[in-house]
């Protein structure tokens, strides 16, 4: 049994224009010690998936499916029982460290709050734990720094504090929602290194959500590629990076800018479809260079490809075997 098992998760939001199907039929599992990367462009449902796991979605969201944490379906729990998971057994770090800390409290207060929310311990003990946590994420002179206010910390240090906060109660699962997007490249590397070290030390499972393929390649074992609210490819990082079996993934990989390459950047033409009143058929068919009639009529299932643990959602996945698919997008843009 895995630590976290998400089965057929669907999330939709009723709006005035219609029902937005933000997440459709997403399934995955994460174990202790795993790093699962979820990539996709903005609006592909990555963050909504993680919010659903954390239980942070607004009440208007309609959620179906199962989220099994250690075998317990946490979607079915009462608010109160649910709260015992949040921040205690699973932690989360957010995209923008500049606004994730409360400006009116010291770092120490906020870390203590994280500890004291789930443990009945004295303020003094919580403060000691806060110092310990700061040291864990590599903030020097943690016993002094614990009394500093967030505005005295740089973006990278604040993100470390956020990691410390998420780790406060020794969770088994850490969800990192674009943890490095708002940081510059050197700080990004430090944060990822901190995450890696913490993972190695504590053996937690990490869900790493990002749109930076480089981050996923460096950190993850398995990855999901999401498009328009559903998983379009699922496999190990090596499988997906070297042998993508879905044209969208191939296009994404082809769009990574390479140092020294001349000319315009490669891109996937068009934009993601609106998630309101989705048309039948493959959601990527409008932008796909390999599109055939069947793509526009029925949505393909997420099925094993030629490699058994590598799943793809594509009618023409067989045609991608042994082909440099990103070249197809190249011709498209050139032509």
């Amino acid at each position: 049994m895995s630590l976290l098992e998400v089965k057929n998760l669907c999330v939709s939001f009723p709006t005035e224009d219609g029902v937005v199907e933000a997440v459709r039929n997403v399934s995955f599992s994460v174990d202790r010690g795993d790093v699962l990367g979820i990539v996709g462009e903005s609006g592909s449902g990555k963050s909504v998936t993680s919010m659903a796991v954390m239980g942070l979605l607004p009440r208007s969201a309609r959620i179906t499916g199962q989220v099994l944490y250690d075998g317990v379906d946490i979607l079915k729990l009462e608010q109160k029982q649910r709260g015992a998971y949040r921040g205690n057994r699973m932690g989360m770090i957010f995209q923008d460290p500049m606004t994730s800390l409360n400006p009116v409290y010291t770092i120490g207060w906020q870390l203590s709050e994280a500890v004291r929310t789930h443990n009945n311990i004295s303020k003094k003990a919580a403060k000691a734990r806060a110092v310990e946590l700061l040291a864990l994420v590599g903030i020097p002179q943690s016993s002094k720094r614990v009394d500093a206010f967030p505005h005295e910390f740089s973006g990278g240090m604040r993100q470390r504090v956020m990691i410390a906060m998420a780790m406060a109660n020794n969770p088994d699962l850490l969800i990192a929602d674009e943890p490095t997007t708002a940081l510059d490249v050197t700080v990004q590397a430090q944060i990822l290194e901190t995450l890696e070290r913490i993972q190695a030390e504590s053996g937690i499972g990490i869900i790493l959500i990002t749109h930076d393929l480089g981050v996923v390649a460096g950190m993850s074992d398995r990855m999901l590629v999401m498009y328009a609210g559903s998983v379009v490819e699922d496999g190990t990082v090596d499988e997906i990076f070297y042998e993508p079996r879905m044209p969208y993934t191939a296009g994404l990989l082809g769009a990574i800018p390479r140092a020294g390459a001349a000319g315009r950047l490669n891109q996937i033409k068009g934009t993601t479809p609106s998630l309101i009143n989705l048309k039948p058929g493959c959601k990527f068919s409008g932008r796909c260079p390999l599109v055939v009639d069947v793509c526009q009529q029925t949505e393909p299932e997420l099925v094993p490809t030629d490699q058994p643990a590598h799943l793809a959602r594509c009618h023409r996945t067989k045609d991608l075997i042994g082909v440099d698919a990103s070249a197809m997008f190249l011709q498209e843009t050139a032509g």
Partner: protein
Amino acid sequence: MTDIVPDKESVPGATVALDEREFTIEARAQWKTIIRRFLRHRLAVVSLVLLVLITIWAFFGPIFWKYDYFSLNTKQKSLSPSWDHPFGTDDLGKDGFSRIMRGTQRSLEIAIIVSIITTLMGVTIGALAGFYRGWVDSILMRFTDLILVIPLLVLVAVLSAGVPKAPWYTIPVLLGIFGWPLMARIARGEFLSLREKEFVEAARALGVGNRRIIFKHILPNLAGPIIVNATLTVSGAILLETALTFLGLGIREPEVSLGLLIQKGLPAYSTRPWLFWFPAMAIVLVSLCVNFIGDGLRDAFDPKQNRVRA
């Protein structure tokens, strides 16, 4: 890749000198910055000093002053200001100086009661509306609109007239109970924007409950607007009480407030002008001071003032 500054605990014998040099800079707490900015606002500082002096005079002066505010003295009727009676006496021989001390004291008390009640009610209602949104917001804000369209002065006048032998604090309590809509709107606006901040979401992700998020995580961020508005309510309340009492609907004898003194002094305006002018000056002085302090506080709390960092 390693940390730029090595962790002392993990790297034995790390560069201690570097670490120590880095932390010679003392943390500047937010409150210190606010106080510093307030002190730069000279008019506000002068006003604060003046208001403190006036308050001390009004509350502790009567203990030392030779006359009290209620005794009649037929031998000393309608005296003009002198060393013995600095603010003169009225037609019943009551000492003007002690009456103004007493009046200022009451007016300040009234203002503070109004300010406390409006702040508590306004912030609570605004916080709930802004935090929960949806139908809670709709109901509370329509209720606020309703209170807002009723003329406060008339409402309080009618209600206070309905209470026979009302003690003096009836007026400020009524003013407070119906005076909170502005504060509620301010708090609601702030809550609407703050509830979307990532630190609130981070608190939720830690498993912090709604009540604690409202009062511990969001409310302290409103300290600025709340303090500024509470201060400005004080001067508003002083003027409102004056208006009510002047119309004969507020504080009644034998209680004394600045409004009451003006009301009593006005008929004698041409013959004994001191009975009108001294309480009038007291009102102007107190409300000006409070307004300037409010201005200074607003500047001190405004983060956009950051450009001048002394």
